[in-house]
């Protein structure tokens, strides 16, 4: 099979399985509403906290109120895009290896990673994050009188895509640890918590944490780095974005592949 027809096949399957994901939404309406409600409360509180802080001070770490809301909103976009496609990684880290249920992804005529992820394509929470993120970005952008250049407009979707890939890579990496440790939920949860830091300007954190968020768990590249570029036109670290994305994805895939070979030696 040529690479082209393979890609076409996966695209067709993704389209179909996306439909299955949406269909699931109607079957589990209450789940969806609870999830959506909890998510809106969370983002509402975040925005309110930011608002409260800015009642006391006009500028935080060199960022104005609307700039921080822009950053908060933008950070939701790659997170949402990632959420649409890789939510099943939580199941891998939580129980699939532990309960010996992972095997089924190895006996299907598609790549095991695709098989795993496609069990939960188009997670509704992802749509929520995308919509709310876009709304916050639009609202704060209009208050900022943001005037993006053509290049910035062209790059913005790529920033979201790369940011989503970074989120996916970190999740894949920590979920794959479960092949060695049977369950890796605490580690994956911790990494997810760390990613929350990037909803706010990195300037307010200690340099150590800043370095960690930039070069170890490179969540800074999902929102802070591209937002700095979009808001100020200052390229800064943004040139590193493709490199960091490629590196994170390559590392995560390598760990995943190694994990697949380790998986069978535990006798589970």
């Amino acid at each position, binding site marked *: 099979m040529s690479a082209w027809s393979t890609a076409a096949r996966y695209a*067709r399957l993704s389209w179909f399985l996306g439909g299955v994901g949406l269909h699931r939404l109607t079957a589990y309406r209450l789940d969806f509403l609870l999830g959506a409600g909890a998510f809106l409360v969370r983002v509402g509180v975040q925005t309110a906290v930011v608002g409260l802080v800015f009642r006391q001070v006009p500028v935080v770490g060199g960022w104005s109120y609307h700039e921080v809301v822009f950053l908060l909103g933008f950070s939701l976009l790659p997170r949402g895009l990632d959420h649409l496609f890789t939510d099943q990684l939580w199941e891998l880290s939580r129980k699939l290896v532990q309960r010996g249920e992972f095997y089924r992804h190895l006996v299907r005529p598609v790549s095991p990673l695709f098989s795993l992820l496609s069990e939960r394509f188009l997670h509704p929470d992802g749509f929520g994050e995308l919509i709310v993120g876009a709304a916050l970005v639009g609202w704060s952008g209009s208050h900022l009188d943001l005037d993006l250049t053509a290049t910035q407009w062209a790059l913005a979707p790529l920033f979201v895509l790369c940011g989503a890939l970074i989120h996916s890579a970190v999740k894949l990496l920590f979920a794959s640890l479960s092949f060695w440790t049977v369950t890796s939920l605490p580690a994956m949860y911790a990494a997810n918590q760390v990613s929350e830091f990037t909803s706010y300007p990195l300037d307010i954190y200690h340099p150590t944490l800043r370095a960690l968020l930039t070069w170890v768990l490179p969540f800074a590249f999902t929102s802070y780095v591209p937002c700095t570029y979009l808001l100020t036109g200052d390229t800064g670290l943004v040139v590193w974005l493709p490199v960091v994305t490629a590196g994170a994805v390559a590392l995560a895939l390598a760990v995943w592949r190694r994990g697949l070979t380790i998986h069978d030696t535990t006798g589970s």
Partner: protein
Amino acid sequence: MIVAHELVKEFKIPERRPGLAGSLATLFTRRHRVVRAVDGVSFEIPAGSRTAYIGANGAGKSTTIKMLTGITTPTAGYCRVRGIEPYRHRQRNARSIGVVFGQRSQLWWDLSVPDSFRILRRIYDIPDPVYRRNLALYRDLLDIDALGTTPVRQLSLGQRMRAEIAASLLHDPAVVFWDEPTIGLDMVLKEAVRELVNHAHRELGTTVVLTSHDIADIAAICDSALVVDRGRVVHQGSIQDLLRSADRRAVLFDHRDPIAPDAACAIVEQGLPGVRATVVDGGRVHVDYPATEFTSRRVLAFLLERFDLADCYAPEPDLEDVLRQIYGQRRDAALREVDAA
């Protein structure tokens, strides 16, 4: 068709020491115990056969199935399914095999069975005529429609097994591996599965490899048996041949003679020394004789001569007894070897 050559699988089990100090120590030192689950097994399973893969507990049956389905890579040796080493070409192999692991579901737990089938149809690129034909077949034989829109996680074990069996055959695989499917509990299901297997065998020449603890399942589905004990194939052939290798056979009879049941037993045991006769319910006499010393002809001739028989039949030997006998003999032989050395 299916070939295993000197197949070995070893697992590393981390050594755990008792107590809190022990578990802390386990965290920092990596000591492993190597367990050999499959110990140099070689066999061939011909295409189109329905083979029961039989072995004592801990003979590595499931591990062998995992290697044949590509889930696990052998530590040494190799196996091939239709010329492919499954663990090297998982996706290619997956197209031509169907799998049921009785303990674990391969269906989408929060979707209905028809939804799961629709997904499988896409994943396996099942042509429309094949898909429709198989669905019609399952409707008739497995009553799949009755499962309706219930999510898989809410199905009973029997219902889920129906769906799992159907799912494993949906894409017309050349080989199906059924590892401990739970079908024996449900007589209707067992009949239906037998029918399905016969159908697939007749129309498509499907090869079936089954492991099961339930002898009734084996007898219902399989025509041949591959008995493995400690890595060696100790019997390969038809289930009938396996049964014929039984060292004890039995005859049950009813008679019209005016004597007490105990007296009848005594007559049999005196006339045929070495034979055990017992009274079973309904006053019938159960005659158990060593097949090595008596032919069934001699036993029956004796009974016909001494009794006015009203009814007489010879049941199939029990597969479990036969297996116990095979494992027992091999164990005795092993012990003798140890003694001699």
